[in-house]
């Protein structure tokens, strides 16, 4: 069955307008909107407004304050889905169930929940030590608790059987959340195979949907998804084919979406995409031709996103400001431009890994030619132009610019 919208929601037309406004907000504005939503006592309506912006939020990863509900369901992040798309058989949890489930768990855990909230007060999910300590305590307590169905459950439109499904799945994951967290904390390093095996292997005695949910959560953060899926498949916790299915879902939901006004963020994202795609292509899962084609399509999308971000950033953060100000840039402005140029270089290097080599040769040459064209502009600083050329096109090109000046 699918979940019905919660009562108390805005009128459909108003909600559509707000959802559109949130989706169209700039990265910075979206960060501020999320901060406001995070402070709301009941964020069910807010969560629906954020749905359209979730792919972008995954990229932006604004520092979110730790809340009991978000910490509780962190190990299940990979299986939390839009209520409209939820099916019990999928082994997932609808987002609309999180608030009543949190309420039920809070009641079941009792004073321990209050003590844990005090322990993480003021911290964000960037404080990994706090997340690990407070999370470990919370997941242990939650796994041992027996929650009753809360009165608000009816508001979700979900049945009692759905409640049993959600609590059974969550309890199964919470029982092994400590080892899952150990792997999540090392996600940037793969995570290493031994941690994946330990985490997924720990759920061997559980229903298969538990290990599947843990793998889905792990893939959300993993920098080497192909290796993670292979390591998970090698454990006895997952029936044959499940790891591949989770990986396919990850590929389906992967959106190579790079910001065009944040060169450092774009470079970081592009590097992560390149690393993940290299890993996917080398993984056993890529041997299947159909999956290989999808990975190649993903690589093409990432390559195009990278080129688009490079072109937009180069224009808005380097070429246009230099042309508008005739090269006369103050120290802070020049520092920012050099920072943007370094990020652009990283973006280019990641883009070349993704496959767009020749496109960057031309783009960099055009940029360097543009800098050279500004040598005679009133107020232009030859050293600044040479430095930007050096960062993007190398010292030999910069020397040529200086010698022609």
């Amino acid at each position, binding site marked *: 069955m699918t979940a019905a919208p919660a009562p108390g929601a805005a009128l459909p037309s108003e909600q559509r307008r707000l959802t559109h406004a949130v989706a169209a907000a700039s990265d910075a504005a979206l960060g501020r909107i999320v901060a406001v939503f995070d402070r709301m006592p009941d964020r069910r309506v807010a969560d629906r407004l954020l749905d359209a912006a979730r792919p972008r939020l995954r990229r932006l990863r604004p520092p979110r304050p730790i809340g009991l509900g978000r910490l509780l369901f962190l190990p299940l992040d990979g299986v939390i889905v839009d209520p409209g798309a939820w099916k019990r058989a999928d082994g997932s949890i609808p987002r609309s169930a999180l608030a009543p489930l949190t309420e039920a768990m809070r009641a079941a855990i009792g004073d321990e929940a209050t003590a844990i909230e005090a322990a993480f007060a003021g911290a964000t999910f960037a404080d990994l030590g706090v997340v690990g300590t407070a999370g470990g305590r919370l997941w242990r307590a939650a796994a041992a608790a027996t929650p009753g169905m809360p009165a608000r459950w009816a508001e979700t439109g979900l049945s009692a059987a759905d409640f049993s499904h959600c609590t059974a799945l969550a309890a199964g994951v919470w029982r092994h959340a400590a080892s899952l967290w150990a792997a999540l904390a090392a996600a940037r390093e793969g995570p290493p195979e031994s941690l994946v095996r330990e985490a997924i292997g720990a759920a061997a005695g559980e229903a298969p949907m538990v290990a599947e949910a843990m793998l889905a959560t792990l893939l959300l953060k993993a920098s080497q998804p192909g290796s993670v899926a292979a390591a998970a498949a090698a454990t006895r916790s997952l029936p044959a084919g499940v790891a591949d299915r989770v990986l396919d879902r990850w590929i389906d939901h992967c959106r190579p979406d790079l910001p065009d006004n944040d060169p450092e963020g774009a470079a970081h994202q592009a590097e992560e995409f390149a690393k993940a795609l290299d890993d996917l292509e080398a993984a056993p899962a890529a041997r299947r031709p159909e999956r290989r084609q999808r990975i190649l399509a993903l690589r093409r999308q990432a390559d195009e996103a990278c080129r688009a971000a490079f072109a937009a950033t180069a224009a808005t953060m380097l070429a246009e400001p230099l042309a508008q100000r005739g090269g006369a840039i103050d120290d802070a402005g*020049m520092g920012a431009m050099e920072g943007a140029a370094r990020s652009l270089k990283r973006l280019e290097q990641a883009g070349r890994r993704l496959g767009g080599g020749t496109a960057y040769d031309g783009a960099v040459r055009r940029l360097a030619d543009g800098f050279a064209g500004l040598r005679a502009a009133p107020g232009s*600083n030859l050293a600044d132009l040479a430095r930007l050329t*050096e*960062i993007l096109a190398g*010292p030999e090109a910069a*020397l040529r610019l200086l010698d022609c000046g």
Partner: protein
Amino acid sequence: MTEIRTDLLERFGTQAYQPATFLDRGVTVPFTTPFLLGARIRPTDTRAGLEVVITNPSGGRGFYIVPWPALTEVCSPTLHDRRLWQRLSDQTGITPALVRETAHAVAAEGLAGRDAAGAASQARGEEAAGRMRANFMLLLDLIRRSETPEEAATAPQADSPANVERRARRAVGRIAPRIGVTPEIIAAWLESLAGAFCGVGVPGDPVQSRTRRMARDLVALVEQVDLWVAQSPDPHEQHAATMVTEAARLTMRCAEVAFRDLDSLLSDTPTLLRAWREDSTGIGRRATRPDWLLDGWQVIVELWRDAAPEMRHGALWEMAFLAPVMPREVEEWLGVEEDWDRPTRLRRLVRAKEDWRSGRMLDLVARNERLRARIA
């Protein structure tokens, strides 16, 4: 800017870098290319050109001694480094002062960034101010030593500028016949002495000189590294710290002796003027000793300052491999005796490590430019 041709580089590897003299040790050049951080230049054996001494970036025992033309094949130096080398390669005698002045001129062009350019201009201004203060301090001493008790009723440093000028002229006029030269020559010698000693600082100067600031920074570095490593259970980190602090302590000991010797020379201006008349070249060389002794430590101090606590382990290794080798010439200079082979033995105990400079090259260049701005 991203790759090092290790196959070409290996041709220039050597274990035999145990310089007997300071000139053999070479002078540190503030390069910004990651591979060249802390590298030194020195004349070739035939004195026909210059070569670059580079610490093996993988650690271990080795050094690379590479002529510049080959270096551009091994790595791709930054624009700043190419321009700096261009200027230095025209020079015949390499000294720390020459490298510093040339580096200031290149940095002032802005090729290592605006911060480095600003810092180079400021350093040049400070050098000029230091020269004026040294001249003034020497003159004050000359006034004190040449006046009668009645004339000295008001201490010269407390007198009005016009009176100090008059009294200085009188003092120079009195000392000149005693030394057997004209007052104009005394004035010129005082200016030359101020130029030679401004980096050392004349006793009584309320502003600390460049080399004394460096010596003070070295003392602070040793204290901080000792404190840091006292909390580390890692024997490798302790070994790196020992390589840094032992070399630093030896340098500090030598610098103290050198400063004592020079302070004694500078404490009596008439005697200093006579010594200058007898052997200005020798006095000028003595004045450069703190510069030679402390050369190479600035980049090490700044590496430590720049490293965030979580990066200090790596920084300590980088510092350890860059720690300058003290040449035996220091025995002749200052009479300091030491187990000269100990630093080499300490280095032998280090296994080759992963290249610490293999991070993102552009980020490392930016870091080195940041160091460059502080080193000026």
